[in-house]
């Protein structure tokens, strides 16, 4: 039973990271209907920035918040400079995201080399009553971030304006909302949320340029499982994927670590075939 609880907690810790990245994906998707495949590499690069700051002697939390600010600005700049001017089909936007992904990956490898680096956690690596404190910290920070994002969108005028810009851009313009800047802000926020995910996962996975590859796939799966049109659903989907992944890896002996990504994805697709718009997503109805 102890093993079971431990696995659930480990699943929640890693699921929180998937949930953050899934939320970042959904934030951009809702505003522009684009899935940002570079989100994982953006988070990875942010984590390297945090690592540099910590190496330069900054205390952990100062580096943490400085990284959030830098990531936010970088997200806004990427949206304004690279994503905005693209005209063409949704697939050409996907190709631009893939271009961004390989650029960030390659730059990180060039600047910081491909060797793995250890990344500090705000908590010591020890267990209290069978619960790892670092995992607890990851869950805690994730929940705080998710709550802050929720509060921002629910209770602030700027959050309301951003939701309006995403849901109905034409009407939003008519009531005086600058839709273009709202999209850029959405990118900035998504980049900052992704940075949190990167800094939380780095102590566990150790930092290297490929760190976020499988994390992005799990986050994408989580976002779709919960329903890509629902931020809350994406968060729950992210946690669900994390728990599922850990339980499969532990209790299904044939699967082990090698095949668990595959098995998790097949299960998720099974759910999607039964419920094609995700657990909490709205079914899109089309007027003919």
């Amino acid at each position, binding site marked *: 039973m102890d093993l079971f609880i431990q696995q659930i907690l480990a699943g929640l810790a890693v699921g929180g990271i998937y949930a953050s990245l899934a939320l970042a994906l959904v934030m951009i998707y809702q505003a522009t209907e684009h899935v940002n495949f570079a989100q994982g590499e953006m988070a990875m690069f942010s984590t390297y920035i945090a690592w540099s700051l910590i190496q330069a002697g900054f205390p952990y939390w100062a580096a943490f918040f400085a990284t959030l600010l830098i990531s936010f600005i970088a997200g806004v700049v990427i949206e304004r400079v690279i994503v905005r001017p693209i005209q063409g089909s949704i697939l050409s936007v996907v190709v631009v995201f893939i271009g961004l992904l390989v650029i960030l990956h390659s730059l990180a490898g060039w600047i910081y080399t491909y060797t793995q680096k250890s990344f500090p956690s705000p908590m010591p690596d020890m267990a209290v009553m069978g619960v790892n404190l670092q995992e607890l910290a990851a869950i805690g920070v994730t929940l705080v971030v998710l709550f802050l994002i929720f509060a921002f969108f629910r209770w602030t005028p700027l959050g309301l304006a951003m939701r309006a810009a995403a849901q109905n851009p034409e009407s939003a313009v008519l009531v005086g909302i600058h839709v273009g800047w709202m999209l850029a802000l959405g990118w900035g926020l998504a980049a900052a949320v992704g940075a949190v995910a990167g800094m939380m996962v780095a102590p566990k996975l150790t930092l290297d340029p490929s760190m976020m590859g499988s994390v992005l796939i799990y986050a994408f799966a989580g976002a779709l499982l919960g329903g890509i049109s629902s931020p809350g659903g994406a968060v729950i989907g992210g946690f669900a994927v994390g728990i599922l992944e850990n339980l499969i890896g532990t209790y299904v002996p044939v699967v082990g670590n090698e095949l668990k990504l595959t098995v998790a994805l*097949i299960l998720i697709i099974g759910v*999607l075939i039964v419920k094609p718009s995700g657990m909490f997503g709205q079914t899109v109805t089309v007027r003919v």
Partner: protein
Amino acid sequence: MPARAARPLLIAAGIMIALALPFLVSDYRTFQLTQVILYAIALCGLNLLMGFNGQVSLGHGAFYALGAYTAAILIDSFGFSPYLTVPVAGIVTFVAGYLFGIPALRLHGLYLALATLALALALPQLLRFDAFEPWTGGVQGIFIDKPDVPFGLPLTPDQWLYVYCLAIASVMFWLAANLVKGRIGRALIAIRDNPIASDAMGIDTARYKSLTFGISALYTGIAGALSAVVVNFVAPDSFDLFLSITLLVGVVVGGLASISGAIYGGAFIVYLPNIAEKISDAAPWAIYGLFLIALMFVMPDGVAGLLKRLTRRLRGPAPTPGRPLTALDILKTSPADRGD
């Protein structure tokens, strides 16, 4: 000269140049050109699915791998002739693609992208799986001998394989071009543009969509089978997620819904990494990414789209709106021009 009459001439000239190329360059260059042809076949198949039928696939590397392994296992374990593996690989990948296409009918857009992504991730792991090792060779993969040049032709093995692949590619491109021009092609495009309306018009949407998945997998699988023979080697690591993403990028860069676009896409896949490496040894993929983004800025509808726009400009302005269109005007322009 009217565009319609020029087209067969252009294609004939293209094939002549393609036939002459291997005799003008080194064996290594010929090998690279063969790779371009193979990717072009695969991209042609993927374009039938994505460009003409509007179904996204992030997992066509899996069908490429399936074709390659089918060929390699047939040669290695069952002593097949390399030439006989191509039709068998085609049948195997067609069935696999068709069967995958049936559950995929429930999924659209991003959800389909996730399902195909899972396919691309799963297949290399299955190929590595211990239980299949007697056939797949596990992590090590399978080595195959390069086939001899038949009939005592005065060619090097690389030149022979190039000519062989070029012949197959020509037939497959001809078939694809006819497919999209005909009744089935119109149905595919109608399903892409408006699935509900095409349903209402009596097109069996489900059948055509799964059939397209099968045909698309067949093209990609045949390219894979040929690649196993050309490269003499298959291993799980050659068919990772990156291959699938490369194929998707190739289709978009070449030009969606364009048969000739596959050739530009194939050249892009083979040559751009080399060019990027020459520009910067330290971070070649950063250069690759920059090229990719720049290409999408300059030609969002791919190389084929750019060429189409250029030729239209060269042909002069469309009939002025002041004068009503006559039947002659309509006859003079090709159907593709009238379409958009």
